[in-house]
């Protein structure tokens, strides 16, 4: 005969998982973890963290610099004289030849 749901729950409730192996040396591991977390960060760790933060902070600045560079280089291609500008624009207009 198969057990009904209430009996299943009762049986599951009566099961006490054996945690003794996991509990063995628990405080020692915990203390080691706490010591690790309490340890003041070493100079190199702090420097690496500072470098990383600075690099992240510089990304927008670098983006603006690259945009400015691209803009200025494209502006340099446009001739400054009026005749040259007309010729430049004329070439830019598409023509249809037969």
């Amino acid at each position, binding site marked *: 005969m198969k057990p009904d749901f209430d009996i299943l729950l009762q049986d599951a409730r009566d099961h006490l998982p054996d*945690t003794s192996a996991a509990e063995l040396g628990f*405080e020692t591991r915990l203390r080691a973890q706490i010591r690790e977390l309490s340890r003041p960060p070493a100079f190199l760790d702090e420097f690496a963290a500072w470098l990383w933060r600075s690099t992240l902070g510089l990304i927008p600045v670098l983006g603006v610099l690259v945009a400015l560079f691209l803009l200025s280089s494209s502006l340099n291609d446009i001739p400054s004289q009026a005749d040259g500008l007309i010729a430049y624009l004329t070439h830019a207009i598409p023509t249809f030849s037969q």
Partner: protein
Amino acid sequence: MSTEPTDAELVRQTIAGDEAAFATLAARYRSRAFGTASRFARGRQELEDLTQDIFLKVWKGLKSFRGDAPFEHWFMRIVVRTCYDFLRKNRKRRENEVLAENSTDYLTRQGEVSPEHRQREAFEIVQRLMSQLNEKDRTIITLLELEERSVREIADLTGWSESNVKVRAHRARKKMKSLYETQMLAES
């Protein structure tokens, strides 16, 4: 006369930087944390990680312990909330668990196996049934059905309202029962 330091004394000493005091506190409450965590974790590694997480949260949060309620209440709230967070973090993995993972002796050889074996298999079946629930319902069912805590106690531990706990428990239980009966039919 007992020379055992009280929980409040150990908390004060820990806050003052006494690591050994915290180890004593951890040893005092370790079995309670392991008992509850073992209902949520699968396997030894998960259990170790979960309990370590619980005690690190306790250690970090000790300064916020005001001492107006017993330490145990405050501690158990952290235990339950960490277990709930653990379920949420591992949601994907648990969703992939198949209900009828393998046919168990529990359904096929009742009466032929030892009570310990039967209870362990029942626990595994309940775990698989609960993997079909969301994390909130699973937390409630674990505390209500496996830990035999009252609705009021669960509401206090989780911070959810009593009516919410009641409604969720009812629906979750119904869903589990239906899944179990479907599985029983499939096995017969």
